[in-house]
């Protein structure tokens, strides 16, 4: 069928103008049109990624560039450092809870908004608003909210609890306690394994900001599920919960996947939210590779080590993105 269409085009093209030179011309123009972007991306994105990779294999520390080859020395130093191991643990904790929270809350909100209540568009807008803020604003505001004050003079959320007579006093952002306590760690790690309690305020702020995004995606998805499927299921005697589990959720799978990819890659690179909210937290309890890279490169002037951290972050993100791209391309060719 594809061949038939092409030959029709060809025949009409033949009638319009000489065949070969027009096609060549069009191809040439097409290439020329996109070449500025291609060149810019090739140089400023891929060229500089390659340059960063090269710097990460060098010995550059200090203002004067020292590009002598140092093998994987920087990578070894980074992996051995207390700070980087904490960063990896924190990133895993943050990604897990952020993804889970955003997806669950997004889905809940989407289902609520989808039930065609009055003022649906108002609620939709309200839930979506936090996404319009920059992470810097979110981080600063939530820092104030979670700032504990003292038990005698509470601040932020604690003040709210105090006003309502609730005897709750959280001091998560000031403690480096890792749950469960005891500081257990395997021998080959330098850091206690677990959930740093100081991450909770950061996770809450991030979920607050991005659950509107997942809500919007799920809303579109829910609206895309044909009603007759559900009607047929009801006729067959399925309960609402069964309909949800067997029809709605599976059909939302591609959306969940997209949301996971987008949110996942945000959380692997996160920097501005954390640095404004906790600055890396009490004793690295909320530190992440983005902050480590920034401080190593721009405060300590250790460019080679910073480049190594950047390449590691790139690899982490590609572990997430590349399977998704492959899956996407395969399903497109299948169609």
């Amino acid at each position, binding site marked *: 069928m594809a061949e038939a269409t092409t030959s029709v085009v060809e025949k009409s093209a033949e009638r319009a103008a000489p065949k070969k030179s027009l096609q060549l011309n069009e191809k040439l123009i097409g290439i020329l049109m996109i070449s500025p972007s291609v060149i810019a991306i090739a140089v400023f994105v891929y060229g500089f990624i390659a340059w960063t990779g090269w710097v990460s294999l060098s010995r550059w520390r200090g203002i004067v560039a020292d590009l002598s080859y140092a093998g994987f020395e920087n990578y070894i130093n980074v992996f051995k450092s207390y700070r980087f191991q904490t960063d990896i643990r924190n990133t895993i904790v943050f990604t897990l809870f952020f993804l889970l929270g955003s997806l669950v809350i997004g889905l809940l909100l989407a289902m609520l908004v989808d039930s065609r209540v009055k003022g649906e568009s108002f609620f939709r807008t309200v839930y979506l608003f936090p996404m319009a803020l920059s992470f810097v604003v979110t981080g600063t505001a939530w820092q104030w909210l979670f700032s504990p004050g003292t038990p005698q003079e509470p601040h932020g959320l604690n003040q709210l609890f105090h006003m309502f007579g609730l005897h709750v006093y959280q001091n998560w952002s000031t403690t480096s306690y890792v749950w469960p306590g005891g500081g257990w760690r395997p021998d080959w790690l330098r850091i206690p394994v677990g959930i740093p309690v100081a991450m909770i305020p950061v996770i809450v702020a991030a979920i607050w900001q991005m659950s509107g995004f997942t809500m919007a995606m799920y809303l579109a998805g829910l609206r895309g599920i044909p009603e007759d499927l559900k009607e047929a299921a009801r006729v067959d005697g399925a309960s609402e919960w069964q309909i949800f589990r067997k029809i709605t959720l599976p059909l939302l799978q591609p959306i969940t996947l997209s949301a996971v990819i987008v949110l996942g890659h945000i959380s692997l690179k996160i920097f501005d939210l954390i640095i404004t909210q906790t600055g890396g937290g009490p*004793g690295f309890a909320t530190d992440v590779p983005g902050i480590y890279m920034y401080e190593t490169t721009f405060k300590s002037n250790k460019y080679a080590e910073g480049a190594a951290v950047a390449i590691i972050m790139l690899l982490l993100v590609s572990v997430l993105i590349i399977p998704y791209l492959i899956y996407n391309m395969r399903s497109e060719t299948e169609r």
Partner: protein
Amino acid sequence: MRSKISILSIFLIFASILFIACGGQGGTPTASTGGTSQSPSPSPAASAQPTQSANQGSSAGENKLEIFSWWTNPGEADGLKALFEIFKKRRPGVEVINATVAGGAGTNAKAVLVTRMRGGDPPDSFQVHAGQELIGTWVVAGKMEPITDLFKQEGWDKVMPKTLLDQITYKGEIYSVPVNIHRSNMLWYNIEIFKKNNLQPPKTIDDFFKVAEKLKAKGITPLSVGGKDKFEVPHLFESVLLATFGPEDYPKLFKDPSMWENDPRLDKAIDTLNKMLDYANEDRASLSWADAAQRVIDGEAAMTIMGDWAEGYFINKGAKPNKDFGWAPAPGTSGSFLWLSDSFGLPKGAPHRENAIEWLKVCGSKEGQDAFNPKKGSIPARTDADKSKYDVYLRWSIDEFKRDKLVPSIVHGAAANEAYMTDYDNALNLFSANRDKEELKGMLLDAASELQSQ
């Protein structure tokens, strides 16, 4: 015909991109790492390279002076303005550009400065902490001109303390003019609380723990410490190090890295810090140094150990010296002055070198320092200050500066370079959170590998 128009439009797009890219160059100075200004400099300051780069910064020909700093807060901004006024009197007709980058402690400014210096677009002069921060970052990279001759010519080597000059000399040359001196090892206390409890400001570390015990029993936080600015606990520890090692051996810590591994006094210092933190507030991580100081004048805490910029903060809040707040050298450090200094140097390739040198002369002059320091809340690096211009605390500090033993601050760029400072700060911030003494010792030892030989 259509394809011809398309090709033409593509060429136009290409041409306009090239035009924009190249046209922008006129505004941004390109690499001229060795170029100096046109006229031969009357100052005997050495190593003037005679090459003149044709495409130097667009401001090169005009009569300007660009000073790069992070003095944006009131007080310091006023002091800087006062210096500009003096400069303008000496060189009327020069446009003074106040290139500041906001962001406390200059982290943003320093990042911008690195970009400019590496790109060959140095300002005429920039604010930098005198000592290893300047030397370890800029001098070893070959970006600064030595100004030892200027020191001799202006007679600064006679009015500034010799220990201070020794500690900012590298391989026999001096590279910056100290404008002010702040003191790091200071204890500030609430006079009301001390009077009510019949206490005297502690002189030794043992005194400190006796006083702290009494205060803790009364339910008053003995020591108020911050943590949000990531330098408060490192700042506290350098006073503890000074108290433990003494003014003779403390500077050796930065010349002999093996001391961090072998010296038993290090363990003693870490134990002292650990014990001190037992008497400090638990919510350190959410307080800045100013919040911690505020608790002292509010009467919620009794003492805080912070540099003497805290005095400026107290005065700003309306507290009265010797009535609401008192001061003393940090326990165990009486007789030693942990100095830090803001200074200005001469970068190689300064676009207006003559003006820059005149600026340095203003910075080092009695007139300049006495105009700047009362506003900033610091004391001059010169010992011939006009004391009538300074408040009661600064007058005391000027006297101390003349007779105490001078030792360089770690946390504020005098004793060690930036890479060491970051590692040291990280080690102590981690310790403030997890109180792991072994981890602290290990990290301090790792940090010591960043110390460069001088």
